[in-house]
């Protein structure tokens, strides 16, 4: 019997209501929306936080210290607080990331799917700290490759991940702040780009 259900008409939209990701180039810098990232949060329950930490560490081949971004083959994991982590993966490959983690960790941890709760942006280009220093209260010079900090950007709570110092940073923000974050970052990019142009 043929499938009587109608052809699905739902299509994925980005946080900006568009079908393609935002990409803004200003001066030497580029801000890219990354809807292709899957996200899940993991909070260890009281019984055995060390075992949860060890299981997560095995996915990235090493212990994950708070404030550090551990990059594995299929996963990026960073600590957001004591006994609490965010796991990132490719959305096309692992849309069910949260379910996988919950199956593995069971009652040891609480896992929450964050795919559509957060938006991931990548800000890159040479000397990109000149843009970021206008936005965040962090000692960017002291943030080496692979560091992760949760902090304030204007009025928004964001996670800042340093992929490559002064070159490439990921910024995670709650999805409802996508427009505000985009506005704040592009404004800073524009302003830093104007100053960089020799008159």
């Amino acid at each position, binding site marked *: 019997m043929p499938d009587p259900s109608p052809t699905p008409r739902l299509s994925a939209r980005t946080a900006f209501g568009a079908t393609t990701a935002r990409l803004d180039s200003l001066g030497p810098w580029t801000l890219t929306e990354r809807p292709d990232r899957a996200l899940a949060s993991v909070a260890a329950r009281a019984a055995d936080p060390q075992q949860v930490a060890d299981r997560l560490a095995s996915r990235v081949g090493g212990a994950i210290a708070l*404030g550090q971004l551990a990059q594995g083959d299929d996963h990026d994991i960073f600590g*957001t*607080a004591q006994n609490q982590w965010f796991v990132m993966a490719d959305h096309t490959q692992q849309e069910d990331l949260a379910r996988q983690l919950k199956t593995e960790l069971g009652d040891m941890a609480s896992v929450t799917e964050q795919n559509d709760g957060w938006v991931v942006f990548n800000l890159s280009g040479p000397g990109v700290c000149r843009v970021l220093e206008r936005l965040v209260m962090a*000692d960017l010079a002291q943030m080496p490759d692979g560091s992760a900090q*949760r*902090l*304030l950007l204007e009025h928004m*709570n964001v996670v800042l991940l340093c992929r490559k110092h002064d070159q490439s940073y990921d910024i995670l923000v709650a999805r409802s702040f996508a427009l505000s974050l985009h506005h704040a970052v592009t404004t800073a990019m524009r302003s830093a780009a104007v100053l960089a142009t020799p008159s």
Partner: protein
Amino acid sequence: MIIPHPLLGPRDAQEFTYLGDASLLDRPDPDAATAAEDFHAYAYLRDNPAGQHQELWFHEQGDRSWLVVTRDTTTHEILNAELARDVVLARRAAADKGADA
């Protein structure tokens, strides 16, 4: 003001919310005979020292931990910061030790 977070290093005070005197960690025993007076003092009475003061700060825009910060109220110098969790657990351990002895 920069607060030296015990786990995250120096962080801007903007990321924190201030609650008040760290004596709020010592909630009185509700079953004690003097509970009414104890709770009145706990809720309403505060010392107002000029000098070292222990207070509770919440890292709201960071890892959402509670800290016990020792601050000099005359200079705003931050002398120490520890996780409130560690402070409470250490006190409980000390109290249990005292009860056993």
